[in-house]
């Protein structure tokens, strides 16, 4: 079964070989180049230039409504403030570690704005900002990094998988979830976030392939931020673009300027519509940049130049969208100030709620290993209970 993207790029027709020249059992020759509509454009889709000046409109990627762009801006500003606050919390010892997504705001927020609340999102550990933009309580998002448990939010209720640390494994989950939802007659789309490094993992390829074979409504969204901790993109792939990885699986793909918030949302809107319409998965590569080190524990000066980082400062996605929305007349000083104030309040609330160490219960370690604890776990829980009781007795004696 061939997929039919909504806007088919033109491809030159190829002559059909005579029927008797084809190999027995070979797929019948298509009328046109079989890669038509699967390969990404030669250049990343861009609707705003780096200064925020609009580029000519594109029929294949209509600009999202201005209200959506205003909301995108608002959540990007709050997202950036959240990110800064989380980094500060690591310095105060409130978080064990934090992988920043500063510079990737267009992708983080654009990604979750492109899907519905009842769609499923499959985030990685770098998607804390995306999850807060999806409306999940930031304290619940940071539970993993604070260390009082693994996943702090309810994935079933939020339709958001736990942040995935093993690389690319979520790509297959997204395929299964999306297929299972469609199988049960629901029009759910799964959005799987993935980084450039993880496209080297087998599970990325297995996930995209399963989604394609089973025509599962998944959008694979690769944030190519150029580094996998310290390893540059050139060590991940020799492909002209990560979006070229779709064609081998029969999956239409596109590349987009990941620091152009308007283009990111426009491309993802089309990808989500493609998946929801039953045409199968879609792969999007966003070219962006991780402005900070991998985490607060990393030293990025060991593997990249300050000049390179400076060059990306000029492509800042938040400033780019602000310039554009001001020029459109839908954002003024007062609105910018109000959103900045809202972001400050968001950070202050987070700071306050992260101030005290959360209570943890050692006996809860035995909960949820199985639906019912095994006899061995019951024994071990009793042993820990006795140890705790002995500890508190000896503290009482002091």
């Amino acid at each position: 079964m061939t997929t039919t993207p909504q806007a088919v790029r033109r491809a030159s027709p190829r002559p059909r070989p005579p029927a008797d020249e084809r190999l027995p059992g070979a797929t019948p020759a298509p009328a046109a180049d079989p890669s038509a509509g699967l390969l990404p454009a030669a250049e990343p889709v861009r609707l705003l230039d780096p200064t925020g000046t609009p580029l000519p409109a594109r029929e294949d990627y209509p600009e999202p409504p201005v209200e959506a762009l205003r909301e995108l801006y608002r959540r990007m500003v709050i997202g950036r403030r959240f990110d800064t606050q989380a980094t500060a919390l690591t310095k105060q010892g409130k978080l064990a570690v934090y992988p920043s997504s500063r510079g990737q705001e267009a992708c983080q927020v654009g990604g979750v704005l492109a899907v519905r609340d009842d769609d499923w999102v499959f985030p990685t550990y770098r998607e804390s900002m995306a999850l807060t933009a999806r409306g999940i309580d930031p304290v619940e998002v940071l539970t993993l990094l604070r260390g009082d448990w693994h996943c702090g939010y309810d994935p079933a209720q939020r339709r958001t998988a736990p942040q995935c640390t093993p690389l690319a494994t979520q790509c297959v989950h997204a395929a299964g979830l999306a297929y299972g939802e469609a199988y049960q007659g629901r029009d759910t789309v799964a959005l799987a976030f993935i980084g450039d490094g993880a496209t080297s993992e087998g599970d990325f390829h297995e996930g995209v392939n399963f989604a394609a074979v089973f025509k599962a409504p998944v959008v694979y969204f690769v944030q190519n931020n150029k580094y996998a901790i310290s390893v540059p993109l050139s060590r991940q792939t020799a492909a002209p673009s990560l979006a070229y990885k779709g064609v081998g699986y029969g999956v239409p793909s596109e590349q987009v300027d990941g620091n152009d918030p308007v283009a990111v949302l426009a491309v993802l809107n089309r990808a989500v519509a493609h998946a929801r319409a039953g045409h199968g998965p879609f792969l999007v590569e966003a070219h962006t940049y991780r402005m900070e080190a991998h985490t607060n524990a990393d030293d990025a000066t060991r593997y990249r130049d300050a000049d390179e980082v400076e060059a990306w400062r000029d492509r800042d996605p938040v400033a780019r969208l602000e310039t554009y929305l001001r020029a459109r007349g839908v954002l003024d000083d007062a609105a910018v100030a109000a959103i900045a104030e809202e972001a400050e309040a968001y950070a202050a609330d987070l700071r306050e709620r992260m101030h005290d160490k959360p209570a943890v219960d050692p006996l809860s370690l035995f909960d949820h290993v199985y639906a019912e604890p095994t006899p061995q776990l019951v024994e071990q829980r009793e042993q820990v209970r006795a140890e705790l009781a002995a500890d508190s007795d000896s503290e009482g004696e002091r």
Partner: protein
Amino acid sequence: MAITTMAKALNAALADAMLDDDRVLVFGEDVGQLGGVFRITDGLQARFGDKRCFDTPLAEAGIVGFAVGLAMSGLKPVVEMQFDAFGYPAFEQIASHVAKLRNRTRGALSVPMVIRVPYAGGIGGVEHHCDSSEAYYAHTPGLKVVTPATVEDAYSLLREAIDDPDPVVFMEPKKLYFASGEAELPARTAPFGKAVVRRAGTDATLVAYGPAVPVAMEAAEAAREEGWDLEVVDVRSIVPFDDATVTASVRKTGRCVVIQEAQGFAGVGAEIAARVQERCFHALHAPVLRVSGLDIPYPAPMLEHTHLPSVDRVLDTVARLQWDDQPDSRWVAA
């Protein structure tokens, strides 16, 4: 009682589960039209359609990861790994997601599924087709691991696995697939977490599971000629493990040999021997001994008989249970 095989009992269990619950989906490599390389899924696609029983791309991590997503959407996947060693690519999915999702999410998300693994040797298979991989799974908290040794247990344990709220690795001893036995299906036997005494005896306890159970039974029969009356306990449920039945038997007999087909070092048999020793020390007349495969990669078919625990090796080991109350000469310093 009708005579049937374990393969047919497993097939019947899958069919009955699919009939009872339309959320059950069976998939893997060659399980559709072909009915599986061992025919365990024979006829399921014809009967239930290719949406309920279907082939997938040949990618085991993909199969198990896909099952994780299906389970998240509320379906009940039953997947086949085709052969023990072919399941290794799926290990990350199994260890990091299948086993842990319930715990990672404090119970908000669970992914009940059955991962069927045809395992172990004794069938003249070439390399990568005869591994005993149960210890990897048993060492992973969050998974249940069961293995039938009888036709009735094959049916009953598989039905229970599909109904279980936790993910189950269902280890199927390949060499027993076509061994026949009496069974009235649908049968329901002892539940998960229960070991079963297959043969009562008074002198020593043989603890075995899966492909080692028939070896233990045969050894117990042969031991009568040597004057030993041996009890045989079939573990069935490796996780959760039934300490109570095993220790009750050993406290009664005072001697114990643990038999497994897998290589011995750091294996399930080592865990069982340690548990018995911890719980039965004062009842033991001899150290707990083990009979296992050798600590080697699974051998080529013409050499596998040397590797596999044999009746003779079991009897030789039983003979070392200090019947004369003298220390085992091989452990005494020269």
